């Protein structure tokens, strides 16, 4: 059972310049009664990681990105247990194998064979186990007779092969690899890839620092970004829970997006005022769905909302994550818009969590309306994703699966709801309505969302609103830029909500016709 858990981990290390490493200065310090302390104790303390929290379970593959000096290697060393944390707690289970520095653990005077045993033993295997592992390493490295030669005659690519072969031959449960993994020719990369898949399929933890987006895309399901020692998860999986509070839903595309875990005030998870009569989520806190707040949250104990939320949750769209803030915002706007002329439409439905909540929340107010739900109901075709969006493709693939029949079943009892399967904007042909009061866009890619916005904005009634589920999430750069342009062309700006949503309200018709003219030309 491989498992790593970091709780608010800070790693600091002293940098001794030549000055302070010398005993003389310590003696001077003592003999001068500490007067020279300031000059002589020239120890600079570097905070390499600050307040890092995450949890890795079996099967997690993590790509570590960040600038040089951002703390990637320190994080790997801390995960391996080499560096102790100054603050915080680390739990680790499972046999660790590290490939951090090229050549570390090898004795260059000894032969390849002797080094296989040597490095394997340093990683915790017995002599006998390593002897037995030699044929496997021989076959994997394809170094042939070179294995009988001293390692000092090897090229760096050959050393990489040897280290990788040994590091994986000991059957690690947790494999930590630093960026130099990119070394090695195409043939090695191919072999390494199949070995990686083997490891990943046997449900182990794999963490890998790299500057190569290709490699990260290839191997990693989760991406951690380090900046100045602060860790941000770029595409959190469904059930990441930090203190059990920062749960975020899969419904909003990259749920924990940009959620700097360290930014959650330390007390957030502990001092929870439990709202009386709360029925929305099982463990309500003031730090959920990407938010931390001290403000009034009466909606949490509103029975109508609780029912709506429960209905949405029952669709399985959120996989148990707490997304009540977002759902609340969506319900509020849908209700407000329902008094206007026109219909409701959602582009990007997945299993219909938010739309089901809205249907429930609006109740009879939806009676004379239509609510169109547009989605492929089988994920996003990769061809329309930009390079940047591709980085999160793996995540989408896993969370957005075939669900058409389920969605049909969910809304079977609501004749007002039309479920339209296909790719936006092609599917607008199947939407009969020409006027809309509420538009919800959540398609996790800029091309489709722009097409939807261009089509729907002119058809939005004055007073109606367009709610963008992905707008303010840090990683959704493409979508944000596209909507900022879209708004600018219409003399507006998008309201970025703390929930990660973006909001556009239509306040006048005139500018709109102009914009329509522009977009049509």
């Amino acid at each position, binding site marked *: 059972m491989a498992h790593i858990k970091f709780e608010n981990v800070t790693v600091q290390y002293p940098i001794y310049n030549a000055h302070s*490493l010398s*005993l003389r200065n310590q003696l001077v310090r003592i003999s001068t009664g500490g007067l020279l302390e300031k000059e002589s104790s020239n120890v600079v303390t570097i905070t390499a990681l600050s307040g890092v929290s995450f949890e890795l379970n079996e099967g997690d593959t993590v790509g570590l990105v960040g600038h040089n000096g951002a703390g990637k290697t320190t994080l790997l*060393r801390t995960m391996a247990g080499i560096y102790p944390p100054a603050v915080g707690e680390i739990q680790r289970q499972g046999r660790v194998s590290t490939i951090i520095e090229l*050549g*570390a653990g090898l004795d260059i005077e*000894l032969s390849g064979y002797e080094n296989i045993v040597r490095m394997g033993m*340093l990683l915790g295997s*017995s002599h006998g186990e390593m002897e037995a592992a030699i044929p496997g390493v021989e076959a994997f490295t394809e170094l042939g007779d070179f294995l009988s030669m001293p390692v000092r005659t090897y090229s760096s690519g050959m050393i990489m092969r040897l280290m990788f072969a040994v590091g994986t031959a000991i059957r690690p449960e947790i494999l930590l690899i630093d960026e130099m993994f990119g070394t090695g020719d195409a043939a090695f990369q191919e072999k390494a890839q199949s070995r990686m898949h083997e490891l990943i399929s046997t449900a182990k933890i794999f963490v890998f620092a790299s500057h190569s987006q290709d490699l990260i895309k290839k191997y990693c399901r989760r991406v951690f970004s380090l900046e100045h020692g602060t860790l941000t998860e770029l595409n959190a999986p469904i059930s990441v829970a930090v203190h059990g509070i920062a749960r975020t839903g899969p419904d909003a595309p990259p749920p924990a997006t940009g959620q700097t875990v360290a930014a959650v005030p330390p007390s957030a998870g502990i001092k929870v005022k439990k709202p009386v009569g709360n029925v929305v989520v099982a463990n309500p806190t003031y730090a959920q769905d990407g938010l931390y707040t001290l403000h009034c949250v009466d909606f949490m104990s509103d029975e109508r909302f609780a029912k709506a939320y429960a209905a949405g949750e029952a669709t399985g769209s959120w996989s148990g994550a707490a997304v009540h803030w977002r759902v609340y915002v969506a319900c509020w706007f849908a209700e407000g818009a329902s008094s206007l002329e026109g219909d409701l439409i959602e582009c990007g439905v997945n299993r219909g969590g938010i739309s089901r909540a809205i249907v429930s929340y609006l109740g009879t107010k939806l009676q004379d309306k239509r609510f169109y739900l547009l989605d492929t109901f089988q994920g996003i075709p990769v061809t329309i994703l930009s390079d940047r969006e591709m980085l999160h493709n793996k995540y989408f693939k896993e969370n957005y699966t075939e669900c058409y029949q389920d969605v049909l079943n969910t809304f079977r009892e609501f004749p007002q709801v039309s479920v339209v399967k296909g790719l936006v904007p092609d599917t607008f042909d199947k939407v009969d309505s020409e006027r809309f009061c509420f538009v919800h866009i959540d398609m996790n890619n800029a091309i489709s969302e722009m097409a939807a916005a261009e089509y729907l904005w002119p058809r939005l009634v004055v007073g109606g609103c367009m709610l963008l589920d992905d707008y303010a999430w840090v990683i959704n750069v493409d979508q944000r830029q596209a909507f900022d342009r879209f708004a600018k062309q219409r003399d507006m700006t998008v309201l970025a909500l703390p929930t990660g949503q973006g909001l556009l309200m239509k306040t006048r018709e005139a500018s709109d016709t102009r914009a329509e003219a522009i977009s049509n030309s």
Partner: protein
Amino acid sequence: MIDQLAALYRYLPLMLYFAWGDTKGRYRRSVLGPFWLVIGTAAGVFGLSFIWGGLLKVDRATFVPTLAVGIVVWQLIAGCVAESPSAFTRNAAVMRNLKTPYLIFPLQLMLRQLINFVHNLVVVVVVLIVFPPPLGATQLLVIPGMLLLVGNLLWIVILFGMLGARFRDIEQTIGVLIPLMFFLTPVLYRPEQLGAMEQFAWLNPFTYMISLIRDPIQGFAPAPFVYLISASMLLVGWWATLWLYGRRHDRIPFWV
């Protein structure tokens, strides 16, 4: 630290393999291998006994065994002490990149020195065959002597390993002091031969370490105070080492 030491038991094969690998590695591609060590010691003992024996005009039958045992024990002591400040720093690459118990490095150093020591014992055996000492039960005192010696060297290696990693001058300082100590310590001679200066020799901890081994081999028991002081050194030394290790072992990977 105690439980860490206990956990090291698992790593014993690793440490032995590495210590032996280091020894082999040093004499790689030479015909005689580690026996160069023995030849070196033998040449030293022979040369010194020839010159000093001539200079001092002493009885070779007692002088040569004194010198042979003295040199072999001194080599063990000096080897451990001189290398102790680099026990951790020499393994910095491993310590920073692989999760290994820190203590295997000083212990590996100790084991390597013991391997050398065992090789060198060949010289002692040959000398003792040529100049046999009076055999008796006294010789059994070598066993507690050896335990005290190794026990003391062990804390020295760990303590100075830590200090040497933190303060880089210590290695240089010890490098300078060791040759001097060779002459200040009764290696080539016996403390009694110093006459009025003898009491100064007993201020030197190394004097005790050598007496613990050499006296029983030559057929007389060391004075009780030798054991008393050695045992005190053992206790105080380990206490200080455990204290420092307990407080600061977390910092070792940052120091190296």
